[in-house]
Each structure stands twice: as structure tokens, then as C-alpha cells.
């Protein structure tokens, strides 16, 4: 496998009896990029992340992190990784500080003051000695993030990192992830908050029913999906004319408009004029990642 990539999975599969949780996931994450892993509930995201972290045996396929194979038996390379999978793993009877102290035992080279640094980074300095079971969901999420950052990882693997956070908290996480990426730290994260992912991620992969159905940069995912909306008095004629326009796709009437994809607005206008048709208005709708995601995941995999 290629050592250029920080994470690589090759034909990763996980079956639980007859249930095919992960059918065939092959992805690669480059150094210092923020990679988004998107999918509806039950698509196989958490199972895939669990296999990447050696928490479960793949049925077949392989995982490499920093060029080294990762399995439940071989996981030493994970010492350079910070993780938060699912709900944060916290010792609820203990304080935030003690949770961090416990993890720090595994990293004797990291000074104790690192605990205060990460608590400040996630804005939990005022509650360091409170038992974690008294924390709100958002506070637990922040502490989980602090645990992930404690060992100064080169790779962060985060599953729903903004879960339970208010908009201000989400923005802080977004800024934090960007600054980490600028420091050369690779971030692999899954989330349902597609608007957030669009602002944060460099590249994304969309998974459905255990298979990756789309993968690329955010720009690539959004490109070619612009929708041209044409309003006119004679929608039927416009619609029929567009079927003869080379490159025009997904032509359909929606309300008082005709929508078409695959061609530019200038091309549509000039074509309709040559056909003797006069649209009232031609507008361009730029879909966001959520729209693209919904369109992708509503198609059969």
C-alpha cells in the first residue's frame, strides 16, 4: 500500500451474519487534509471507523495508518492517533482532569501542563474538577475532544465531533479543525451536519448501505450539479426543446419552472432564443452538499 496516504482502506468489508454492514469501502486520506465521511444512519460509518481503529475484525479487506497495517492484533501505530468514536468514552465517576490524567499515563513524555492546554482549547477550564456525570452532552463532547487532542496526535479520527454543541461551539470546533490542519494534522471525521462538513472538509466520501457511492473534493462533489431554472409562459415547449439540447440532463417541470442540469445558463438562453422561445427568467441554483448528499443517497446504491 501507498505510504503517501495517512489512512488507506482497501476493499474493507464487515458482515454480521447475513447483515452486510460494510460491503466494500476503499478510501485514502492524504496528509494534512480534512476528510469527511458522510452517510445516512446505518450506512456503515461507525463500523468502518471501528475497523480503522482495530476495534473490530474486518470480514475481509485491510486498513493501513501511516503505512502500517492495523488490525485488532496490531495496533501500536495508533499511539499517534487521537480518536472519538460515537459518544465520548469517559469515566463518569471521575472529574474531567482525572479522565485526562488517566490517559496521560500512556504518554509519560507529554508534560502534565498539556492537560490544562487542552481543557482551555475546548473551553472546560471552569469545570475541571467536577464529576463528568454532571456534565451536559455538549460538555462531554468537549471533554471527548480534549481526550482526542491530549497526545498531540498526527491524525484525528472523530465520529460526530459537533454532536450536542450549540452553534458557537460548532464554529469553535470548525476553527479548531482548520488550525489543526494548518499545523499538518490530518483529520478524518464523520458527521450528519452537512453544512458544517461543507465548510470544514477538503475531501469527502459518501457511503450508503456499506458502499462508497461518491468520493472527491467538496468542489468536485458540487460541480456539475448546478440547476438551471427557467420560468416561461409555455413550459411545455421549453421542456420539449431542451430535450434536443446536447448535454442537457434531468429535464423536468417543477411548479412554474422547468429545471435542467448539465448545461450552463448562457448556453440554455442562447439555445432557447435560436428556437424562437422566450423565457421570462433564467436563474442558476447552486446546490449545497446536503442537496447533493440527499440526491446521492436517495438513489439505489
Amino acid at each position, binding site marked *: 500500500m501507498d505510504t503517501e496516504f495517512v489512512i488507506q482502506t482497501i476493499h474493507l468489508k464487515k458482515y454480521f451474519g447475513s447483515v452486510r454492514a460494510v460491503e466494500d469501502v476503499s478510501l485514502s486520506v492524504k496528509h494534512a487534509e480534512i476528510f469527511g465521511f458522510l452517510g445516512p444512519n446505518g450506512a456503515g460509518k461507525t463500523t468502518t471507523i*471501528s475497523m480503522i481503529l482495530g476495534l*473490530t475484525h474486518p470480514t475481509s479487506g485491510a486498513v493501513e495508518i501511516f503505512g502500517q497495517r492495523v488490525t485488532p492484533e496490531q495496533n501500536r*501505530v*495508533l499511539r499517534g492517533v487521537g480518536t472519538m468514536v460515537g459518544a465520548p*468514552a469517559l*469515566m463518569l465517576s471521575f472529574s474531567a482532569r482525572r479522565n485526562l490524567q*488517566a490517559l496521560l*499515563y*500512556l*504518554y509519560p513524555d507529554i508534560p502534565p501542563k498539556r492537560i490544562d492546554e487542552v481543557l482551555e482549547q475546548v473551553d472546560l477550564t471552569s469545570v475541571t474538577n467536577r464529576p463528568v456525570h454532571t456534565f451536559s452532552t455538549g460538555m462531554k463532547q468537549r471533554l471527548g475532544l480534549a481526550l482526542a487532542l491530549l497526545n498531540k496526535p498526527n491524525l484525528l479520527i472523530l465520529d460526530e465531533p459537533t454532536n450536542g454543541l450549540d452553534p458557537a461551539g460548532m464554529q469553535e470546533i470548525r476553527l479548531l479543525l482548520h488550525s489543526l490542519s494548518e499545523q499538518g494534522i490530518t483529520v478524518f471525521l464523520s458527521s450528519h451536519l452537512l453544512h458544517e462538513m461543507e465548510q470544514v472538509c477538503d475531501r469527502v466520501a459518501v457511503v450508503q448501505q456499506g458502499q462508497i457511492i461518491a468520493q472527491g473534493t467538496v468542489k468536485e462533489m458540487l460541480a456539475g450539479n448546478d440547476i438551471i431554472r427557467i420560468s416561461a409562459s409555455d413550459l411545455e415547449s421549453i421542456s420539449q426543446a431542451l430535450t434536443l439540447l446536447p448535454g442537457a440532463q434531468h429535464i423536468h417541470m417543477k411548479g412554474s419552472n422547468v429545471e435542467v442540469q448539465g448545461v450552463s445558463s448562457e448556453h440554455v438562453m442562447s439555445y432557447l432564443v435560436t428556437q424562437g422561445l422566450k423565457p421570462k427568467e433564467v436563474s442558476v441554483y447552486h446546490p449545497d452538499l446536503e442537496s447533493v448528499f440527499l440526491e446521492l443517497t436517495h438513489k439505489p446504491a
Partner: protein
Amino acid sequence: MFWNVLHLESDKVFRRLLLWVGLVIALAPMIIFLFIAFNAGRGVIPTNVLIWPGGIATVLAFANGYFPGVGYGVYLLAVVIGMVTAQEYSWRTMQLWLSHGIARPLLLGMKFLLALLVVMLIVLAFFLVGGIISIVFAYQLQGTVDFSHVDVLQLLLSYLRTVYGMLPYAALTLLMVVVTRSAAAAIGGLVLFMLAIELPLSLLLPLLGTNYGRIAQYLPAGLAQTMNIQNDIAAKMVVQTLVSSGQSSPLAAAICIAAYTLLFFGIALWVFQHQNLTN
């Protein structure tokens, strides 16, 4: 990594009130028994099993069970190990440690090592508290306490024999909690094993004959009894057993204790190695 993980595991166990409060509760039956027995007079229980130095063998037997089902130290061990380990599953911190590069065998091995340290602490507590009480009784009865003829090596061996006799229960508790991921199931399972399997078999098998009685000797409780009898011999006390069919030889008991421990821990390790920790 070994010392780092050991430090982590010991912090989870020894900095918790559960262990220390549990010790007080587990010692209570022994303390109550000793005072009642001592005050009941010589005709009820021979005083040499209560006062120094013979009393040491008696108090150690309270830790690992002089009779099946009477091992208060074993119950405490099950509660502490069961709860601390099961919480790692419910809190998902097992996943946290593994995702930071700790190998599964190392993590479970450390948990067993911590269980051993807990056993040693429990037995030490029984040893010290019971020992002090036996010294007080000796002074009360005789007006003096004889330390000059105390065989320190035998005392140490008695302590180690008692610890050793509890190892199968430590491994069995760990196995149950790994399989069930539940403190209640692990603790309940061990109590059930002791009271519903070991105790009835220890009582009933000898009634069926010598050969059947020998089977009871090789249950973990029977093996622990063999260790206790060696403690009695070391304390030069009259050996009294409630099981009339005799005990296994010390060497056979030691081998069987090791075999049980390795078997239970080996199965726990195999299960843990193959466990899906996605959720």
C-alpha cells in the same frame, strides 16, 4: 508501555472508594465472628484457633473460604473486579485505551495483574486486622503475647497460600465480565458458582462415596481448603475439616489452582481478542 498501562489500571482500581469501603464490609463478618467466638468461652470454639498465632490461619480462611461459600474476600474481589471492568465496557473506555495502541492481551493481562494485587491487598487486610485481634485476644487470655517462636517464613507462606487459593476466582470473575460485559452478571455468576455449584457439590459428593468426594476436593473451593489446611498445619493447630473425605495433596492442589487460573484467563483472553468493540 507495560508500566504505563499498569499505572493506568492501578489508578482505576486503587483510587476508588469501592475497594476501601468494600474491605471494611468484607472484614466485618470476620471481626464479628472472632469477638462472638472468643466471648462464647472455651467450650464452644478452642481458643487456640482464635488467639495469636493460631488465629492467623483462621482469619486467612475468612478471606478465601474455609468452607465453600464463606469466602468474604472472594466476594469482595468479584465485586471490585466485576464492577471496575464492566464499567470499562459501559463507559466505552475499553475502546479508548485500545484505540491508543494498547494491545488487547496487554490490557487484559494488566487487568488480571490488578486483580492479583487486589487479592493480595484483601488477604493482607484480613491478615493484619485479624492478626491484631488475635494478638489482643492472646493478651487478654494469657496476659502476654509470645512473639519469640513466631516463624515469619511460615506466616509469609500462609499469606501467599491464601492469595494463591483465590486466583481461580479472580480469573473466573474476569472471564465472566468479559463474556457478559456486565458487573451484575459477573458478580452474580460467581456467587451462583460458589453457592449453587461448589457448596452443594462439596456437601453431596462425599455422601456418595470416597471417589465422588475426591471430585469436590478439586473444585476451586476444595483446593482453597487444601491451602487453608496447610496454613493450619503451619500454625500447629489441630486440623479440623468439615469434609470427611480428606483433601488433595498440596502439590496437586497447587497444580490444579494454576490450571484453573490459566484455563479461565485463557478463555477470557480468547474471547477478548475476538470481541467486537464497535458499540
